[in-house]
């Protein structure tokens, strides 16, 4: 039995209220607009016969006389393991790539239950991305959740696209929230070469705000299906701050009491519920999550990056077009660094120590101090390190990254100056040429 109502009592922002009976919390509804268009909405509050809905397409143009039909089901993702690949959807899961809707698919509830912590395993495998500042210096580990803290204007979407192309994963799910249309087109074009393993869920800045809130759930519901089916999935989300802002907008429209800088009190729980979807399932697949979080005013204590930092297992800082080796941290890297190559951890530490030295020398130089010949070497090394390791365009396998590291050190220093253990020097220091 379909339940159809034709009177809306209240419209505030993207939230509408009407009188209806026997409606379930979370139920999906379809609103038929006067002009013949349709939009969907979800029940977010029930009080007696008063039903509050958040309208996915926003309330613009909705009339108090529009027809509201309740569909008797929750918001779902249409899933088909083969047909989803290479497609682009909006936040509600409708295709927006001009191709037909999916046939023969399974309806999957989004925002499903939490993974049982007692069945989790300790992560143990690295994911190669080809980017030295990740693979060598802050290794990404399967099932890890990491934010990329950045600020407007930084090439974070370029970085994500590069990871989407290069990373070792069976399926890449990209969720775009509040994307500039140009960025959307950029992703579409960039991801063509990997389209047989890539799915896009996209909300652009001009799209309705409620759709933005659905993107992570859609992307993660798809990821969870693939992961339980034995696939290693990498989920890339951008930008989580836009997602949090969308939650703020709806919360304010519902007259909720804000907690911190206008954000709702459950911001932490909402973010955590998404990030905690990252998992390594014993004997099956995995979900690894990288999420761009832009920091308004470059302030890491802003509620969104701050709450995120407590949830995630480290963070990358993308600053000045590069991944900053000092603030960035992969908390899980020690779980895998011992298994890569014996020189990995010591070489990484030596290179970072010397790069730190180069930054200090650069500072002293700019203050007019005289610098020694060793300092000169350190300076040259620093510039070389930036060009050949930190540049985001560098694409090398981990082995090549490590070899490159030794090569750079050998070009600027004597073995003793690096303070690396003699045994490693013997095996890895470039010979002769």
């Amino acid at each position, binding site marked *: 039995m379909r339940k159809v109502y034709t009177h809306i009592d209240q419209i505030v922002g993207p939230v509408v209220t009407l009188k209806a009976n026997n409606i379930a*919390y*979370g139920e999906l509804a379809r609103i038929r607009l006067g002009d013949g268009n349709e939009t969907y909405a979800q029940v977010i509050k*029930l009080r007696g016969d008063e039903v509050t809905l958040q309208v996915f397409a926003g309330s613009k143009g909705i009339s108090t006389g529009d027809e509201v039909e309740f569909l008797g089901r929750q918001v779902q993702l249409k899933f088909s393991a083969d047909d989803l690949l290479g497609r682009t959807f909006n936040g509600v899961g409708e295709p927006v790539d001009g191709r037909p809707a999916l046939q023969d698919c399974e309806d999957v509830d989004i925002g499903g239950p939490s993974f*049982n912590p007692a069945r989790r395993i300790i992560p143990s495998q690295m994911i190669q991305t080809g980017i030295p500042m990740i693979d060598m210096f802050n290794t990404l580990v399967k099932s890890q959740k990491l934010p990329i803290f950045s600020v407007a204007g930084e090439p974070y979407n370029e970085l994500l696209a590069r990871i989407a192309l290069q990373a070792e994963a069976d399926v890449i799910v990209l969720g775009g929230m509040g994307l500039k249309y140009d960025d959307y087109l950029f992703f579409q074009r960039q991801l063509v070469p990997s389209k047989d393993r890539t799915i896009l869920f996209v909300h652009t800045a001009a799209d309705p705000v409620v759709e933005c809130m659905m993107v992570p759930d859609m992307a993660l519901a798809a990821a969870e299906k693939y992961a339980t089916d034995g696939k290693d999935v990498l989920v890339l989300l951008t930008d989580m701050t836009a997602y949090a802002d969308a939650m703020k907008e709806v919360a304010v429209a519902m007259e909720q009491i804000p*907690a911190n800088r206008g954000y709702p009190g*459950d911001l932490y*729980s909402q973010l955590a519920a998404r990030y*905690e979807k990252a998992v390594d399932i014993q004997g099956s697949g995995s979900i690894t999550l990288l999420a761009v979080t832009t920091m308004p005013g470059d302030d890491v204590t802003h509620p969104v990056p701050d709450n995120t930092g407590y949830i995630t297992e480290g963070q990358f800082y993308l600053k000045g077009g590069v991944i900053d080796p000092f603030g960035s941290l992969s908390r899980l890297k020690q779980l895998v660094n011992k298994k890569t190559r014996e020189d990995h951890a010591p070489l990484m530490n030596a290179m970072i120590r010397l790069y730190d030295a180069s930054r200090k020398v650069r500072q002293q130089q700019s203050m007019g101090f005289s610098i020694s010949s060793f300092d000169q070497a350190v300076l040259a090394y620093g510039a070389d390190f930036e060009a050949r390791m930190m540049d985001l365009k560098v694409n090398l396998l981990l082995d090549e990254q490590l070899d490159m590291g030794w090569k750079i050190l050998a070009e600027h220093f004597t073995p003793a100056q690096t303070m690396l253990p003699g045994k490693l020097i013997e095996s890895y220091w470039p010979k002769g040429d």
Partner: protein
Amino acid sequence: MSSNQGKVLGVSGNMVTVAFDGNVKMNEVAFISLDSGDDQVQLKAEVIRIRGRECDMQVFEDTRGIHIGTEVHFTGELLAIELGPGLLSTTYDGLGNPLDELADNSGLFLKRGVYLPTLNRTKVWQWTPVARVGQRLRAGAALGTVPEALFEHRVMVPFGIVGAIEVLEMAVAGSYTVADTIAKVKLLQTGEVRELTMVMPWPVKRPIDAYEQRLLPERPLTTRIRIVDAFFPVAEGGTACVPGPFGSGKTVFQQGVSKYAEADVVIVAACGERAGEVVETLREFPELIDPRTGRSLIERTIIICNTSSMPVAAREASVYTAVTLAEYYRQMGLRALLLADSTSRWAQALREMSGRLEEIPGEEAFPAYLGSLIAAFYERAGLVRISDPNLGSTEGSVTTIGTVSPAGGNFEEPVTQSTLAVVGCFLGLTYARSYAKRFPAISPIDSWSNYIDRMSDSLEKQYFIGWVDTVKRLAAFYAAGQRIGDQMKVVGEEDLGLDDFVHFLGAEFLDAVFLQQNAFDPVDASPSAERTALSLQLTARLIEHEWNFSNKDQARETFTQLTSIFRDWNITAVQAPEYQQLLDRLEGSMKPVDSAA
């Protein structure tokens, strides 16, 4: 037992408003019967506000699918957990459901509406009766014991019983499950006859107080973390709070304490934190051997795991569940340690509910009663005397260490401030120290402990006579050294006098060799009390030695060398041959040069 029915009137997030007919108790548990096609489930909920014929309930599950008019069945019982043998080495969610069995039962994901008994009903225990037929006993008195892990688990007269009971029948020694009747008693006040099993349900929000009296905490709880044990000691039965921004090493600190603290039972409450951290504990503890007992660490541990993506109302319940378990073991005369990580997530759960109840918000939208709830929670810690008519008098304790995750790393926020007002010890983790890789990143300047003077007798018994004086002297020395360091940043090293410079080096030395500790090194992670005593004495002597340096370079070189030797010694096991050699080198450095040659 009432069997009240009600009907759902409203749903908002995890809060449901219910109309009811009979009488409803505050904090009573009810089940919401959800019938959505083939999916028929009962969702657990708790009454948190009553107004007229309506009550507001927080639901411990996802509320999707609840209708207006959905039936609600009130149980008449408060939110409770089952107490009894078999709790140790188990992982529970915030409501006391065993997570392993949940997975066996319903797969990898936590299906809503699935509740399992906290205690295993099939496991057999070796029962030894303690009470005698005809004996008159009160709540908390032992009826008998069963061996659990390292100690005799006392099966007690239920704590909720008012007045005395008379033992009518006792089960003979032998093998029983927790569900078997082990005693038949008569409640003298009401005349009611009751059959008792080893299972005792207890409402988690009510403190267990079946002890004789509370005592002043005067003994330290050794954590084996040097900076804590020496400078900011935690008392057995005391409370401590560990606030710190993300990335300041809260997790590593907390895990270290859970491994090495000298407690009989450790309860780890992972409240709204990452599941990954719990997994490390879950997977590592069975492999780790407790050096003091020779048994696996998991045998003394209970994990309450309500991680960040699990339902938020159950997160609110989880800290109460955890402290109830700690109090239960305290009643057996044991030292229970509760690690609550993180109390901020609990406070946030309160804030979420308060927002849904549309209460007038306090600071940062936390409810106005946040402070009193935090105080009440920490007040459940304590050292108590228990006297049992048959087993005699013992002491038991609950020590609570709570971590706080202050928003933006700012200690001025309401949760940190409310907590500081009620705890006896503050271990503040700072960015500055963690950036400088000085771990544990507990600030030696800002942290404090109220217990150090109160415990001076037992501290000096444990370490050495003069311990407290030495600690205080070194703390003052360190603070002065920091001031010199700040001064040096302004005037430069050149303009600093030699004496001040040596003082500064000494303070840095104290930091490097004593305050810092490598949690990942097998030796340095958990020094014994004897070793810590020796470390402190040696550090003090080296710092206070008359070095008579002729210039700064010589001073710097000497301290650099001492630091490196001392740190090597820190990571050398007592049995290793280098142990004595390194000690001799440190001692030798203080001898006049001619005799050393």
